[in-house]
């Protein structure tokens, strides 16, 4: 059984998705600081059920989510609404989860991503049952984590 990917690998997986789809490359934030608590957050969770259940979470602060959504829909930022933002976060989570599943050599099917209610900073676990990484591209920020077990 392969261990959960380390933060560096997780950063590459997210960047792989955002570079291909949006032309935006993310890099891990040095020291992996605690995300700012004073911002509002959107969080998507995706479970991979099966013999080794895994959960993938991707969260963005509202401003970052807004800009990523505009890039995804190829539209001006002013045209972005809440539903579009949630949709693009779900899809980024879905694509990242596909890569995480591949890295873990899981012969299990992807579940459907869903948006968590509320705008609080998501809580994440600690290694070895969870691996996480804070990511940055200019002023854009994302938080990705992967946990053993089915959550959400």
């Amino acid at each position, binding site marked *: 059984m392969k261990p959960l990917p380390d933060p560096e690998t997780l950063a590459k*997986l997210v960047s792989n998705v955002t570079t291909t789809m949006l032309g935006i490359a993310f890099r891990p934030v040095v020291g992996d600081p605690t995300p700012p608590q004073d911002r509002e957050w959107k969080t998507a969770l995706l479970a991979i059920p099966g013999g080794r259940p895994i959960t993938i979470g991707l969260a963005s602060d509202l401003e970052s989510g807004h800009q990523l959504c505009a890039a995804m829909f190829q539209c001006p930022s002013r045209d972005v609404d809440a539903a579009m933002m949630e949709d693009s976060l779900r899809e980024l989570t879905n694509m990242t989860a596909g890569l995480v599943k*591949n890295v873990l*050599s899981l012969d299990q099917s992807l579940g459907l991503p869903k948006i968590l209610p509320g705008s609080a900073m998501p809580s994440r676990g600690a290694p070895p049952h969870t691996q996480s990484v804070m990511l940055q591209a200019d002023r854009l920020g994302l938080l990705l984590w992967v946990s053993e077990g089915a959550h959400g």
Partner: protein
Amino acid sequence: MDVAMEPAAKAALEKSTGPLAQQIEKLVLRKIADDSLALPALPSAIARCMELLKDASAEPKEYVVVLETDPMLAARVFRMANSAAFGGTQRSATLMAAVTRLGLKRLKTLLLQAASERLFISKNASIAALAASVWQHSVAVALIARDLCALTARSDSEEACIAGLLHDVGKPIVASVLLEAERQIVELRGSAWIGSEEWTYVLARTHRAVGVAVAQKWELPEVVRTTVRDCSEFDAANRASLANVLCFANALAKTAGICPPLTDIEDAKALVLIGRSLLGVEEQVVGSLSSTIKGRVAEVA
């Protein structure tokens, strides 16, 4: 895993044979670690040539001196240098001329092909047929991987070719271990051991580690070792990896009909489709590779 069966049957097989496969895998890995598994050494002439290849200042005559100690190998060098592909009027009358005509890059591939092929020759009738078909398949994978690299702007076609030749090299070795275990159990209990599906399953689970150990013992480049190790699955996060090229070539050789017994063709077709997207291989390239590979393997293997 190469066994063609429904998902439910696969799961049942994994449940029933998984523990045995794990035990065999542990046994083989332990044998590799404590150097008690009889891993084949490079034949001495090939090993000495490989040493020379690392020395940029080595002269062709130095290779000739070494090759002359292995008549079979020397004959192979002559045969390739005088093959249709190299033209025929100026046939190489001397080993020196043959080596010069081939060039060092081709000589290296030829040496490793000769060394690998010897591992697929078994005096044991139970293994001989399997080994022969795995060798044909390995040559096909090597050629496809090499051509794919050359056609897609990669500079690692030589490593791809070597990794292709070696990607299944652990199979005949593990098969020998299994046969020996079977012989002992049958003698001890007087009963049959495992069926062919379980046999193939255990082989599929275990052989890569042995292939990596052989590549290590032969001091092949790191990329060859990691490629042999990782080529069972695609790495979607690292699309351009050589292991992905080899995984694709492996599947394509199977769908082209050059495959070991009990190959799951449906699984191979799915891998080809996934690989085409991952590696950006156009459909007509797949068509060309598939339609020509049998003839090319017949020329080489």
